[in-house]
């Protein structure tokens, strides 16, 4: 019977008594080289399984996922950077494979849905290995969704395997009631709202703490080239990844707001493109300018069924003597606008 103790004894005896010193040295060096080579191979095998996507692909034959990954922003990152499996998990898998004949794995044996803590390692805390990973810390979108609401990164960035950029109107998945009605139901039924199919982040901006578009963001499309240049330079997520297309910018009505025009507050005070294509002129005297119907000659003009905008041109608002000479004279002789409110 094979007795390992005895065998070992015989080998040592043979090595120490039967060999010449020269043979001993050769065998010792040979053994040393053998050990080093084995160590190197073991390192390489481990490195292959840990760090080479090809090792993963041997079993994980999900062609679409692989192709998407290869052309994604994460193409030069190994599977295991995001799809972590602990050494223990790996050993259990290997044991099952080798000794229990298990040929499939439980779903999510690693973290197939990558937990945010792994994303944050590079994209919030900085990882020296991936120093160019975009930093989400300055993003107010992420402050709201990641920090305050604790929404997992993959909810928005991984809902389609390895496609990390969101679709333009993906926000509607959660913000269901905020969907534009391309065929407005609240204004004139079946009339198309002009901004009805725009990407959410064409308007909603990372520049404001409540993520609502401020004047400048509206003027990105409705203003001049100067505003576009300024915002593009700031490179917030909304203009970097969801920049309105040239066609959108071209279509947008360009508005001219004179420096001295009154009421230069947020556009949304009057406009709500989620509901209507144009502000409702009836709300002017209901929501804010409630005393205007009694002021000066307003009453008599409103009785003639004139609307606010017939005299007050949107965005410049003030009726200048020049305008009065042009417009008022269509009904009566010219009078100084200042006397209108006396």
């Amino acid at each position: 019977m094979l007795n390992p103790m005895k065998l070992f004894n015989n080998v040592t005896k043979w090595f120490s008594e039967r060999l010449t010193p020269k043979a001993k040295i050769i065998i010792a060096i040979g053994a040393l080289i053998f050990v080093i080579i084995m160590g190197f191979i073991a390192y390489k095998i481990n490195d292959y399984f840990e760090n080479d996507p090809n090792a993963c692909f041997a079993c994980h034959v999900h062609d679409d996922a692989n192709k998407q990954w290869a052309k994604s922003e994460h193409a030069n990152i190994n599977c295991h950077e995001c799809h972590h499996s602990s050494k223990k998990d790996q050993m259990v898998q290997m044991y099952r494979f080798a000794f229990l004949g298990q040929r499939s794995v439980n779903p999510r044996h690693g973290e197939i849905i990558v937990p945010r803590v792994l994303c944050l390692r590079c994209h919030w805390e900085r990882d020296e290995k991936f120093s160019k990973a975009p930093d989400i810390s300055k993003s107010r979108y992420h402050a709201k969704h990641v920090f305050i609401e604790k929404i997992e990164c993959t909810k928005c960035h991984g809902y389609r395997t390895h496609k990390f950029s969101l679709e333009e109107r993906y926000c509607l998945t959660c913000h269901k009631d905020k969907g534009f009605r391309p065929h407005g139901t609240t204004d004139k039924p079946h009339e198309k709202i002009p901004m009805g199919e725009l990407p959410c982040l064409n308007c909603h901006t990372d520049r404001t703490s409540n993520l609502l578009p401020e004047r400048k963001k509206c003027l990105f499309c409705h203003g001049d080239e100067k505003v576009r240049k300024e915002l593009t330079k700031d490179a917030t997520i909304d203009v970097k990844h969801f920049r309105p297309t040239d066609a959108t910018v071209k279509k947008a009505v360009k508005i001219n707001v004179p420096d001295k025009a009154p009421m230069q507050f947020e556009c949304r005070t009057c406009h709500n493109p989620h509901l209507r294509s144009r502000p409702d002129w009836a709300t002017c005297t209901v929501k804010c300018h409630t005393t205007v119907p009694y002021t000066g000659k307003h009453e008599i003009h409103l009785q003639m069924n004139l609307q606010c905008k017939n005299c007050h041109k949107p965005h410049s608002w003030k009726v200048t003597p020049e305008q009065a000479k042009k417009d008022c004279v269509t009904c009566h002789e010219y009078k100084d606008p200042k006397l209108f409110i006396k």
Partner: protein
Amino acid sequence: MGRNLWMFNPISLVKKAILWFSQGISTKARIVIMGSLLLFSLAMLFAAYKINDYFENNPNACFACHVHDEANKQWAKSEHAGLNCHECHHSTKKDQLIQMYRFAFMGQRSVAPRHGEVIVPRILCLRCHWERDEKFPKAPDIGKSRYHAKHVFNEKIECTKCHGYKTHKFTMEERYCITCHKNKELQPHDTTVQSSDAKGTKACLPMGSLPCFNCHTDRTSDLLPGRKKCLFCHGSESIRQELLADNTIDVKHFQPKQETIQKAIKLKISANAAMQFHCYECHNPHLKARPDWNNCTIKCHANVLNVGKHGLHLQLNLTCKDCHKPHEWKVSPEQAKRDCITCHEYKDPKNFLK
């Protein structure tokens, strides 16, 4: 070459011991020896576990060397009194072994400053206070706090900057914000309005020494006080109850004192009063005690001078508030019957604008 038989040879010692154990003693003796050896190693294991547990999890182990009485006392009465030192002051096993080696073999009796993480990195705080740790499920969650979204997430300011600047005192002082927001300090002795009166004493801003969070709230995305937050002091008990029920950090930890509330002027705003927007549109307690009435016709109501009888009344040196009572604004017929008749006979306020 003779053999040095008298030299100590561990291999032959082991050989002899095995020989003695297998041939020199009775079976009974062998069992006794084996049993006691087993007991001995179990006892050693237990002792090792206890020693490790003591050094890892018992603050007394730390206190043996870290004789910082003030820090210890503060910790014992702090919110973190139930936590062990090492939960926050992490030192890796490697660090610990190096320290122990230096202590035992190199005679080093002091440690390099911050051999562990004496200034606790935010990642350790976030483990319990943002991600939830099952061991400490009651740790307050900063996830819903807009203060923290701004300062921790956006600005990446270390937690200890605000919560640990005095050792083991985790609650900030009331006006600690001013450490960074230097230019936002309320001037209790106002320098921007009247730098000094005739006697040379400085005018005092009424809200000049309030805690920052008495006004700045966790309720709004820009952290500016919304109407309701102003009305916490300047409004009725029902608003106070509502805000207290919401339990945001500002009313939980920095609730205005009874005395502050009592001092605050109480406003009555009827439901249909005009201009019910944010108080800060007109008021800026950082700069002035009261809004500047000149601003009304410059900033917003530029036309009013030309409207109806306003021009005439302004020429008589009346200011806006003489007729428009703050927060109510609209001149009602009742008020007109009372106020206008001090100068002239009653006229319908509606005709004032004609």
